[in-house]
């Protein structure tokens, strides 16, 4: 069975001012259905760059990134956007919610360009927020929500288009330990009970315990990649 996403010997070079920075120097990784991959590494190791490439936000300088077996490196911007719309959800460290919209409306942002019945969209967003324990805060704006609640809104936003894979860049980076743990538990729930695939990039090594596969990245290369636990098993995320 083809991997959901596969990176083959991927490199990525950036030009910062006049200096060329080599963020990735030949990385290969396969993301399989049901994975809960945790990528750790120091700042500047290239982990966020890898996440952007896996999420079709960017194209590699060389190598291939295959989504459902199709190479995205030659695709145009529109095709990349379609892949992100249908297959991928993103969760960011700083949530990136729209301050003028309430939680429910923020969750529905990815549906805006999609032709979908409004009521169906609302039902879907409401169901997701309920499952994420946000039933009572749906009509609150981001300014009225705590950090953990905001991140749960952004998880619901990532899930609204029913993507196969959710990519999270430092999802607990702006949260305290307890709140961060709750957010990861929510992701585990969707991984184990709803069969969603997750790739998390983090500084926090304690999250490695939850991973089906641990990935260490350093200086633009994968240092260690090892299986940790079987999928759909082992970790109890319920309190």
């Amino acid at each position, binding site marked *: 069975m083809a991997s959901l996403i596969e990176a083959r010997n991927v490199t990525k070079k950036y030009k910062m001012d006049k200096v060329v920075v080599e963020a990735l120097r030949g990385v290969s990784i396969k993301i399989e259905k049901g994975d809960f991959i945790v990528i750790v590494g120091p700042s500047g190791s290239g982990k966020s760059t890898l996440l952007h490439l896996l999420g079709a936000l960017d194209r590699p300088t060389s190598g291939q990134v295959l989504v459902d077996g199709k190479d995205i490196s030659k695709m145009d911007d529109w095709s990349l*956007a379609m892949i992100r719309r249908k297959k991928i959800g993103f969760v960011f460290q700083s949530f990136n919610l729209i301050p*003028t919209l309430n939680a429910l409306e923020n969750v529905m942002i990815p549906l805006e360009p999609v032709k979908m019945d409004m009521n169906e969209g609302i039902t879907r967003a409401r169901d997701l927020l309920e499952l994420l324990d946000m039933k009572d805060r749906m009509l609150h704006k981001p300014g009225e929500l705590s950090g953990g609640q905001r991140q749960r809104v952004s998880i619901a936003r990532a899930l609204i288009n029913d993507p196969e894979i959710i990519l999270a860049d430092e999802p607990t980076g702006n949260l305290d330990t307890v709140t961060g743990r709750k957010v990861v538990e929510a992701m585990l729930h969707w991984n184990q009970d709803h069969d969603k695939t997750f790739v998390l990039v983090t500084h926090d090594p304690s999250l490695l315990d939850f991973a089906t596969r641990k990935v260490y990245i350093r200086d633009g290369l994968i240092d260690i990649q090892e299986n940790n636990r079987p999928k759909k098993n082992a970790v109890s995320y319920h309190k």
Partner: protein
Amino acid sequence: MIKLSFLNLFRRKSRTFLSVLGIAIGVAAIIGLMSVVDGVTQEYQSIIGGMQGVWAWEKDVADNSLSRLDASYGTEIASMQGVRVVVPELWLVPTSVDGKPLSLSEASSISSIPSIYAADLTAYNKLRSNIWIGEIAEGSMLKPGDSGYVLIGQGIKENMHKYVGSTIKLNDKKFRVKGILKTESEMFSGIIFMSIEDGREISGTPSDIVHTFFAELQNPAEDQAMAQKMEFRMGDKIDFMTTSDLSSVFSDILGSFDIVAVLIGGLAAFVAGVGIINTILMSVLERTKEIGSMMAAGWTGGDVMKMVLYESVFIGMLGGIAGIILGFGVSEAAKGYGIPSVVTTTVIINSFVFAMALGLAAGIYPAWRASKMNPVEAISGG
């Protein structure tokens, strides 16, 4: 998306307000100026529209009140085949009214400046319609032999508190008001109509001189041909103009005012447009992260562009609505100063469409910038 775009405008209320105000001023300027042009046209048409004939005045003079023609020309014009009636006319400005010398600086509005139109009443009463003065609202028409009587415009009635039966002293002669003219036209409301004999008496114009002649034709459709015939016979001394020519000359003048109105308003709107570009561009740059996360969620460059264009069109719409309200204010203010002014539906629709189009045009560059953002850079805040 429409709701999102609309809400985005209220994130920086004062900035949006200033952009809207800029457009509103441009639109109000266009509406104000066009309303005056339309107002003047309408008033003019209400008086001139009913006149069908040929107007004769001294060759190459700048104004009808400066024209001097030999009274005998009237007989010559009247003798031509196709001419129904010829009315000898005088155009005067009184030097004093009710004993007070007339000073332009005292005039608070156009309508308070009286002007006298004197005509041969025998000929005038044979006309099919009342030329220059329009219909009579109160009192009755002057009849041949009505010496010492005048008809007055609404402006004279209101500003000088004159009614049917009042007396009014023009230069050294006292007149009794026999009727009030119906037209509320600010251009014609200062008119005083009297017999040509009375006109001669107060102005000292000799009996063998008239200022102009109006020739009513048997067949108004032949006015161009008749004017040519008259020109052929008497063109060395007299200029002949048909009333339809008069209308088109007038329309031409107003047409140029139209262009000036559009230019002034357009310039104001252009400046406002630059304001919108700035507002929207700032707002887009401030929301780089949000736009990045929208792109991450599958929004295409085109979707982002649409969102930003909605915002700028909304600014145009709000500016258009505010400008129309402001434009009505300008038009009312013009009326207060005695300037005819009317806001037509066409002007309202055109101004609104113009404001929306301006918003759309001003949004194109910021929308394009937003749509071309690199998602990775945008997510990290550019």
